[in-house]
């Protein structure tokens, strides 16, 4: 096993990986740009190296510099986390060429799946069902128009190198095409330094079901069931869960087998995810393969008991899978909410600032994978996701009840977060009944409920404001209550409170 690994990432996922490594008695090396110097993940690791770049993001994308740090630090392997260089085949290749182990698939598998157009071709050959669309990047707007006409609107424009909803635009008719085409290209270029985009038929309101697969270098493959990531806002996943409410045992097995075939088709090693769209008639189509650990991997860990990050590390070290397919059972239900620093009352625009107060929920069945602490600075340099809240319950309703309790108890001050919005979704009757698809937020969810939830506090807020106003305008006056105190203990408590 490795003695020391480098984590080529930041934030909550860096802590997640460092936890896994430490439990395996492996030392961890953090890298950080100056802006991240005080982030908790840096101090969580055993060693830390500063990396330099003109922009903070570019530092985490600097292949040569990261490999140099790995060599200097004596790390035997590099875990890329998600985002940044995790799906960069050149990086995986450069790491291997430097004599360091890349904790992930082989560069050729990343390359095969990295270009979505090539991946579709490969999957079609392997007998995996795919959505109608182009296989080549679009050369021009005219070509886009032609293809859109031939497969029929609505269509979806997607970045070839993309992920996370960036560079992705839905187009409902030909008049919208030009603007969407240009906008998708711009976003793709900014996010992935590659403006190649392609067209796919838009399957209206499907469910987003993904299968976790894992393979070792000895030819053992396994699938760890599905995750339902249908609650998305502008193609960004918000709430994920496992298992899905719509899969029966038969479909689960079938999708699992197809996912393994897909992984085999690209000679896959390590943890990966095959994303599918599931339509109303339970037909499923290959969407893409993520050749890395997913943000939402914890829900799978919670229901299977398998630590995916540890499994990744031991596979990279040449070990066999620690379990067999037939050992796996679904145990209970897990839900994950992504805590984004975005303002749900202002079009979900990202919010920045310093976290002045943070209190995370806890208790039975609760897991918080967080990248921030009191005093952490949330900047506009990185993705606004600051933490993930995961709850596990014996069944779905149990997990959701825990989730609601935890969200109500989660305190993040200093930046706005989407927590009130998450509470509203968790309470939504259709979501609770498990009746939802990727169109849920667009079609079923009434965003004005947020204002109604806010209004419920109105009088209390007015009363507290009045209290606070008097407190500050008459600062010298002690805070006292005229209620009769006939209890010595309580009197003492009140005395203490007055001193605040």
């Amino acid at each position, binding site marked *: 096993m490795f003695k020391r690994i480098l984590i080529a990432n930041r934030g909550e996922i860096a802590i997640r990986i460092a936890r896994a490594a430490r439990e395996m008695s492996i030392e961890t090396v953090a890298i950080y740009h100056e802006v991240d110097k005080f982030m908790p993940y840096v101090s969580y690791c055993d060693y830390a190296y500063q990396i330099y770049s003109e922009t903070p993001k570019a530092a985490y994308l600097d292949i040569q510099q990261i490999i140099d740090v790995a060599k200097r630090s004596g790390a035997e392997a590099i875990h890329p986390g998600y985002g940044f260089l995790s799906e960069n085949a050149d990086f995986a290749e450069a790491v291997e060429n430097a004599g360091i182990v890349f904790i992930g698939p082989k560069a050729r598998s990343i390359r095969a799946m990295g270009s979505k157009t090539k991946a579709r071709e490969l999957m079609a050959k392997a007998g995996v069902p795919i959505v109608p669309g182009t296989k080549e990047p679009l050369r021009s707007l005219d070509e886009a128009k032609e293809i859109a006409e031939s497969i029929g609107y609505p269509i979806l424009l997607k970045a070839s190198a993309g992920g996370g909803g960036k560079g992705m635009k839905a187009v409902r008719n030909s008049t919208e095409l030009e603007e969407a085409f240009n906008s998708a290209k711009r976003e793709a270029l900014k996010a992935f330094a590659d403006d190649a985009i392609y067209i796919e038929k838009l399957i209206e309101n499907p469910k987003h079901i993904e299968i976790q697969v894992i393979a070792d270098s000895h030819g053992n493959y396994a699938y760890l069931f599905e995750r339902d990531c249908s609650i998305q806002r502008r193609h960004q996943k918000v709430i994920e869960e496992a298992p899905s409410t719509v899969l029966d045992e038969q479909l689960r097995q079938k999708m699992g087998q197809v996912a393994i075939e897909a992984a085999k088709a690209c000679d896959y090693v390590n943890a990966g995810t095959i994303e599918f769209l599931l339509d109303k008639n339970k037909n499923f189509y290959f969407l893409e393969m993520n050749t890395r650990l997913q943000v939402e991997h914890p829900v799978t860990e919670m229901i299977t008991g398998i630590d995916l990050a540890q499994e990744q590390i031991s596979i990279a070290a040449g070990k066999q899978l620690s379990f067999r397919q037939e050992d796996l059972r679904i145990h209970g239900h897990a839900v994950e909410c992504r805590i984004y620093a975005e303002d749900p009352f202002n079009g979900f625009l990202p919010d920045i600032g310093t976290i002045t107060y943070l209190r995370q929920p806890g208790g039975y069945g609760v897991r918080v994978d967080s990248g921030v602490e009191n005093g952490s600075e949330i900047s506009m340099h990185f993705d606004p996701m600051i933490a993930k809240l995961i709850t596990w319950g014996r069944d779905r309703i149990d997990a959701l009840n825990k989730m609601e309790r935890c969200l109500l108890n989660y*305190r993040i001050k200093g930046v706005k977060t989407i927590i009130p919005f998450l509470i509203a979704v968790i309470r939504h009757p259709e979501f609770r009944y498990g009746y939802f698809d990727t169109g849920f937020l667009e079609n079923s969810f009434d965003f004005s409920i947020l204002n109604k939830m806010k209004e419920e*506090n109105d009088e209390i807020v007015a009363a507290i404001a009045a209290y606070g106003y008097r407190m500050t305008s008459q600062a010298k006056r002690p805070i006292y209550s005229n209620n009769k105190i006939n209890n010595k203990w309580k009197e003492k408590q009140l005395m203490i409170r007055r001193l605040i």
Partner: protein
Amino acid sequence: MENIIVKFDGKEFNIKYSNSNFANIAVNDKIYTIELLKKIHDNVFSFSINQKLVEVEMDFSDKNILNISINGFDYQIEITDSTKQLLEKFIKSSSKANHGIRQIKAPMPGMIVKLFANEGNNVMEGDKLLVIEAMKMENVLKSPISGILKSVKVKEGTPVNKDELLLEIEPI
């Protein structure tokens, strides 16, 4: 203590303080008994309101606005009294300068990547005005009113700060 008016989210609440009992505050004539239980952190307090416990963040740093947040909901509160309010109303109705001109400010720091309209253009409510990019996501700003674009303060490619003035629209 003089009675006050608390304003937020376009609503007004009449506050009456009790002179005999500091804990009693009437909001629109409904009495609330409030006790400050403890200070949890800088600006974070635990209150008991009619024995129900709530955690509140109160920010007093702004002289004119009291910022309160409860359970992730934020309230910008303006406190005034009846004389002040009368005066404000008078000033508002008598001043015609800048009357009705709607200023569009940057909701967040970012960069202007696209402008859809030029100075002097007519815009309808809901029309796209510009695209601002932040954290690699493009966000479209739409016109809140119908009117004429009186001024455009930014160009494509301009980086902007939060609350920076972007456009002014004169309603028709």
